[in-house]
């Protein structure tokens, strides 16, 4: 790959990784480009394995994996492009936060390690605690200093394994803002998380791994629309729910209607057809349509469907 976009691109082609008889990642092909991509999956699905493969800390048993066109395995130069925030809490606890980030900057042979350190520590809002030993930090503070060390060399690709672990809500919001900003700058951010709410707000694209396989890839709303075997669920509020329900039940696009205390819950096999028919039907029946809410278009619902299947 050439050009600035190619430099940030992570490519997996038929990547498989096994340990003895256990296949941790099974024939995954995907391309991850600039922006924030969420790597989702149940425990043991293979998310960390994919991250470690991408970070050059695991060799594919089969297939090819490149970052910016170069293999990450056995290639220390790749770390000029990649910044890694591992899940494990272990950091050099005897160092202060500033010493840890500055050591990393020096190992990257940056022209001005001190300035790069100040910048990275400011980005994660750790300036006040930078002179304390890391052993005195809370878990959330350790996460933030790890992020600072991963950012100190201004990498184009950032890999984060469960970055929100140990963070309080305010720190999570700050981290989400930071990652959003970095993604908007054209960097490739790949994060693995089981906190769906954060990924839903943060990631434009998701890669869902289930039992080592890539179950789905792309925008989660688009993924939901492709799940044609599962009826879409809507909540409809109108001026006469019961009359609308009676009219809807006869439509081919509708597979079920339930009158609830909160409105009309409608199951529709065809998202597009239902949306068009609803507008026409309410107009013809003289019913005022107040609200139409998709009830299972959240990332949580999409994820649950994918894991179940």
């Amino acid at each position, binding site marked *: 790959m050439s050009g600035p976009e190619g430099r940030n691109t992570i490519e997996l082609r038929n990547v498989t990784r096994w340990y003895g008889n256990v296949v*941790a990642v099974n024939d995954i092909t995907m391309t991850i480009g600039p922006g924030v991509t969420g790597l989702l999956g149940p425990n043991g699905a*293979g998310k960390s394995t994919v991250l470690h493969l991408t970070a050059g800390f695991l060799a594919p048993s089969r297939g090819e994996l490149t970052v910016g066109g170069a293999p990450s395995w056995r290639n220390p130069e790749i770390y000029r492009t990649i910044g890694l925030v591992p899940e494990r809490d272990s950091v050099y606890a005897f160092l202060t936060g500033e010493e840890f980030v500055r050591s990393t900057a020096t190992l990257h042979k940056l022209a001005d390690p001190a300035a790069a350190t100040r910048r990275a520590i400011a980005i994660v809002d750790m300036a006040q605690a930078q002179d304390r030993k890391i052993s005195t930090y809370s878990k959330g503070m350790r996460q933030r200093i790890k992020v600072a060390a991963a950012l100190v060399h201004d990498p184009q690709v950032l890999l984060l394994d469960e970055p929100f672990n140990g963070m309080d809500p305010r720190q999570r919001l700050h981290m989400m803002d930071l990652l959003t900003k970095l993604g908007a700058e054209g960097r490739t951010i790949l994060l693995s998380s089981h906190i769906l709410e954060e990924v839903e707000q943060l990631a434009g694209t998701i890669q869902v791994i289930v039992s080592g396989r890539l179950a789905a890839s792309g925008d989660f709303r688009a993924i939901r629309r492709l799940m044609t075997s599962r009826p879409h669920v809507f909540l409809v509020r109108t001026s006469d729910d019961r009359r609308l329900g009676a009219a809807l039940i006869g439509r081919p696009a509708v597979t079920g209607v339930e009158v609830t205390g909160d409105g009309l819950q409608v199951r529709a096999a065809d998202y597009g057809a239902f949306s068009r028919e609803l507008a026409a039907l309410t107009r013809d029946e003289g019913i005022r349509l107040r609200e139409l809410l998709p009830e299972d278009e959240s990332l949580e619902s999409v994820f649950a469907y994918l894991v179940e299947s």
Partner: protein
Amino acid sequence: MFNKVVASITLRAVFGRKRALLFALPPLVLILVTLVLKAARPPGAQWPGHILGDFGFSVILPLTALIIGTSVLGAEIDDGSIVHLLATPVRRSSVIVTKFCVGAVLTMAFVAVPELVAGLIATGGPSKLAAGLFVGALVGSVIYNAVFVMLSVLTTRAIAVGLLYVLIWEVVLGNFVSGARLLSVEQYSLGVANSIAHYHALNAGLTLSTAVIMGTIVTVAALIYGTRRLSEFSLKGDAV
């Protein structure tokens, strides 16, 4: 090749752990035993060679080198903090060589210097024995650390494997099987020590040239293999 940042972190990591206290114990024991024996003046003028050679080179030197050699890298691998070092462009050979150098220098400080001190005490002043023990211990510090740093990369049980090597291979087999001496760091050290001391009680089983050649081969091979394995350092994924 030698990286100051890696060296600084390694030194601070080694002395920041409680096991650093263990470094000081063996050499203290060696000096204390020497002082006691010197005062007691046991019959047989060969006791310095037995104590400082047999005890010093078969117990104190390898065990101290084992504790130090596995601390400089093994502890970081065990707790996972090594990832932060390896996720930088620093060459793996630089990591291995730097940690080996730190380990070797620490072992020299905690074993070779006490051997010299004990030798001076035992012989009542500067002597070929004291000089030989010092140089032999310097050589042993270098070779043992190369082996134990390599071992730290190969296995999480480096201390157990190292102990097996020292106790079974060097102490037991090395004394009864002449071929085993060719792969014994203790014998390399004693060979060099004896080439200066010319002291029969050291029980050196190898000539100087054999000791130097084999010691060099073992050191270089250990560092090269350790570098190769560190280049393939893997983080376990979800399945394991």
